[in-house]
Each structure stands twice: as C-alpha cells, then as structure tokens.
C-alpha cells in the first residue's frame, strides 16, 4: 500500500472518530450514514467502471436484492440481521453470475443497455411481485442491525459500524488495485486483446469484478434496510444506478478515493438541495453538467493535478 493511501486512511479514521463529537445534531450523523452506504456501492462501481471499463446501470437491482433479502428474511422468517445480510450477499453473487456471464460479453453501449434492462426488471419485480414484496407499500418494521447480542439501534453505534466496514473495503480495494489484479483490470480497460495475451482470463476477471461490485451494492442495500427499517421499491429505481455511476464519474473514474469523494459530494448535494424543493432537480442537473464540462476526469484527479502544479511552481520559485 502506498504511503499516501495509508495517510489518507488514517486521516479518514480520525475524521470519522471526531465527527460525532462535533456534529451539531443527529441529522448530521444520519447524513454521514447515507454517505457511507452510497460510498460502499460507489467504490465497488469504481472497480467495475473506473478500473475495468465495464459499465453497469443495473446495480440498483443488487441494492434492492440486498435490502429486500434482509427485509423479508428478518421480518417473515425471523432471521438475525447478520444472516439476512449474508443471505442477500449470497443471492447477489448468484444473480451477478447469472446476469454477468452473458451480459459481460457485450461491450460499450450494448453492455449499458443490457444492464439497464436488468435494473429495470429489478425495479418492476419489487413493484409487481406484491405477494412477496408488498409492492409499492413496502416492508416495515425491519429490525436494526445487530451482531449477536450487540445491538446497533442508535445512530452513533450504527454510524461507527458502517464506517468501519467502509474503511475496511477501501483498504482492501486499494490493495487490490495496486496488485497484479489491479494491473489486470486496467489492462482489460485499455486493450482486451493484449490483456488476453498477457495470460489474463479476461472473461473471468470481468465477471469477478462484476460480482465484487454486486456484493458491495448488496451490502449497502442491507445496511440501508436495517438502518431505515423500511424499504419500498422507490428507493431502488434506475435513478439510483445513475447516481452511483455519477458518483464514480464526478469523483474521478480511475481511483477508489475519487469514487469515495464523489459519493460524499453527491450525497451532501442531494441533502442540501432539499431546501430548494421544486427546483432541486434542476440545480442538481446543472451542477453535474458544469462539473462534467469543466473537470471531465473528476474532482480527485483535478485536485492532484493542481497539487502537482503548485509544487512545481514552488520549486520553480524557490
């Protein structure tokens, strides 16, 4: 692991520890929890989209699968939340293999369309399979997350838990992208044919990354369900897939930290814009257009470039 990554992780840990002490009220903690939920999905998408160059507009379905697995298994069959979450992950892995195996043979726009269709089917299923999902009215009384006897039913303890999980995933993903697997992913994004001639089993690596990104989305869905204690199909529409892709693009396609920053920015922006009621979507769209227009490769790479430029200037002057 690179030194600056280690420094950033330590810095993030400090911020996470201090934040509850300085947060004015519990609303801030709630927003921080949503940031972590979104970031968990976004860093998974960053591996798939940013590193491997494979797009998915269907990850809302994995989020929904995780959320509804937790919701249904815990309310109907009395599963403990941990087991509900794990079941969601297993289902998502199976679903990702089933969908990913054929879909990942497609490229570019065709892959986008295929995954979009999958996302749409997921949303429609949640809405229409009313005997199982209760349709639009959703599922209530989902238990808060707990690990054995350790109940995480207040905001701060769940906040601590989910940020710990997120930081763990950031740590693992950073290690992965800096290893031979990360190089293989970038090779596939750059030139598939040449990647094969390096001995990379391209189809299998693509599928593994798709599965991995489905796992983080499913986990995020389960955590959402156990935190909000209520799920309905509207939380898992196509717009969520779009949001995740935007987080990765706005933060910086080719970096784990970038997608994390993208998740922070877009989650806060969404919350902030609530105050503008009717024109919030308009401002939201405008912001995204401006960001994409002026810093198309994302916020984090631009900051890095700015830092380099400043350092060079300083060296030049000094």
């Amino acid at each position: 692991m690179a030194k600056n990554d280690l420094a950033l992780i330590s810095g993030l840990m400090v911020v996470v520890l201090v934040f509850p002490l300085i947060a004015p009220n519990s609303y801030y903690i709630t927003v921080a929890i949503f940031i972590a939920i979104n970031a968990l999905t976004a860093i998974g998408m960053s591996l798939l989209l940013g590193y491997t160059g494979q797009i998915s507009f269907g990850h809302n379905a994995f989020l929904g699968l995780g959320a509804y697995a937790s919701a249904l298994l815990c309310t109907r069959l009395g599963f403990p939340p941990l087991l509900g979450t794990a079941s969601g992950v297993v289902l998502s892995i199976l679903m990702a293999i089933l969908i990913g195996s054929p879909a990942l043979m497609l490229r570019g726009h065709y892959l986008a369309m295929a995954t979009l269709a999958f996302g749409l089917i997921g949303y429609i299923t949640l809405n229409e399979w009313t005997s199982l999902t209760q349709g639009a009215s959703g599922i209530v009384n989902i238990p808060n997350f707990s690990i054995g006897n350790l109940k995480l039913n207040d905001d701060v303890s769940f906040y601590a838990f989910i940020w710990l999980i997120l930081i763990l995933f950031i740590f693992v993903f950073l290690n992965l992208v800096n290893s031979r697997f990360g190089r293989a992913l970038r090779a596939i994004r750059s030139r598939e044919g040449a990647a094969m001639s390096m001995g990379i089993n391209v189809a299998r690596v693509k599928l593994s990354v798709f599965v991995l990104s489905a796992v983080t989305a499913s986990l995020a869905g389960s955590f959402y369900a156990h935190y909000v204690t209520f799920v309905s199909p509207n939380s898992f529409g196509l717009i969520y897939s779009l949001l995740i892709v935007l987080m990765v693009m706005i933060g910086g396609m080719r970096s784990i930290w970038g997608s994390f920053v993208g998740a922070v920015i877009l989650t806060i922006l969404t919350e902030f814009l609530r105050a503008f009621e009717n024109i919030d979507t308009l401002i939201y769209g405008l912001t995204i257009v401006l960001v994409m227009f002026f810093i198309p490769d994302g916020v984090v790479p631009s900051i890095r470039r700015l830092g380099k430029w400043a350092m060079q200037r300083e060296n030049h002057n000094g």
Partner: protein
Amino acid sequence: MAEVNRLEVSNISKWFGGVHAVSDVSFSARDGVIKAIIGPNGAGKTTLINLLTGFLQVDSGSIHFNDRPINGLRPHKIVSLGISRTFQTVDVFEGMTVLENVMLGSYSLSSTSAFSHAFLFPGARKEEKNLRARAVEFLHFVGLDEIANMEANSTSYGDQKKIVLARALTSNPKLLFLDEPVAGLNETETEKIADILREIKKQGVGIILVEHDMRLVMGIADEILVVNFGTKLCEGAPEEVRNNAEVIKAYLGT
C-alpha cells in the same frame, strides 16, 4: 543441445465467410530459431498468428506444441504454455507506467490469490517485489531503464515497440510471435530491435516473425516461410527464398 520446444502446424485452414484466409498451411518452428513469415499485404500472415495464439480457431488442421494439441485453447491458456505474442498495432496499456506494463507480462507466472493481495499477506508482497525486479531486468535488457516510471502512453513510438517486446519476454516464453516489430521504425531503431532479437534467440527462445522490412528479415531470419493468398508458397533458408521464382512473382507481380 537437445531440441525441447517445438511447434508443429499441420494443414490448418481458416475461412472468413467465402474468403479462404488460410488454406492448408503446414510448417514447424522450434526454440533458438528465428522463422520469418513474409508475404504481400492480405496474404494471411496476421491471421496465421491469430490462429496459432488462440485468438482465432482453425476450421481444419491441427496445431501441436511439444506434442500437445493446442487448437481450441483460449489465448490466456496458450500464454501459460510458453507461447507469447505481440500485436501489429502498438498496444501498451494506458493508465499505467512502463514498469507496470512490463510487470503485466509475468501475470501468467504469478500465482498469489486476490485475497492474499487484499490483506497484504507476506507471500503476495514478496511476489510483487519479485515481479518488479523481473520487469526491471527486462526493461534493462531492451534499454529502457530510464523511462521505467513514465506513463507508458506518453513514450515515443519506438520506445513503445520495445515496451511490448519486453512485456512479451517477461512471460518467459519458449516461443515468441512478433507481428511487425519494426514497422514504422527508422534504420537505427530497427538495428537496435534486430540486436535484441538476436540476443533473445541466443537465449534459446524461438521467434516467429511477421515483417515487411526485408533487410531485417534477410539479416536475422534462419528460415523464411512465404505465404500468398492464404497458401504456403515456399519455405527455406533466406538464400533459397530470395531466388525462388514464385516468390519474385508474388512480390513483383511479373
């Protein structure tokens, strides 16, 4: 030294719709020998490489490497048997350094799991260090030590040709397919590549070279295979081929 690595190509054919791209071609290649495949544009040379490295599948005929049939194997399997290749277009991986590009060459030699990398197990870190050292060694071999940490995409065309060569060598090939390794290079750069290829040969690697640069081919090839319209015209030592009437006809059209 006993001959150890041998590629045996028997009567292979490939159709693209109604076009007979490769028709009943047979030849063999072995380690320590540079074999050049020449022929006019569209003769089927690149198709031949694609067939022999698993990027295309033959319609008929067989390919054996060390008596093991390899037709039907996918490219990544063939690499792991010790058959490496480069492409006609320069294809360095963008978004990584020259060193990282060359490190990818030894992907098939590494065996540590994703899990052990994710949690920084000592074995994974040690292997990473070895891969790095190995890549540095091959970068030195092709004379690119100084640009190791440059973005691969931003290096010169000539350097990119060397990067892909070093990358292919890092996989420890017994047989190396090179598709136009000096296309677009000037005379000095071509001479440098020729030296590298001679050195590779000296180390016992077999080279199969597709190239239009006749001076390079005549200068370094031990054997030449001439193809035209997907069929084998003739095969032999450079001198024989140079004086073959059919070859002259195919090239000069008289």
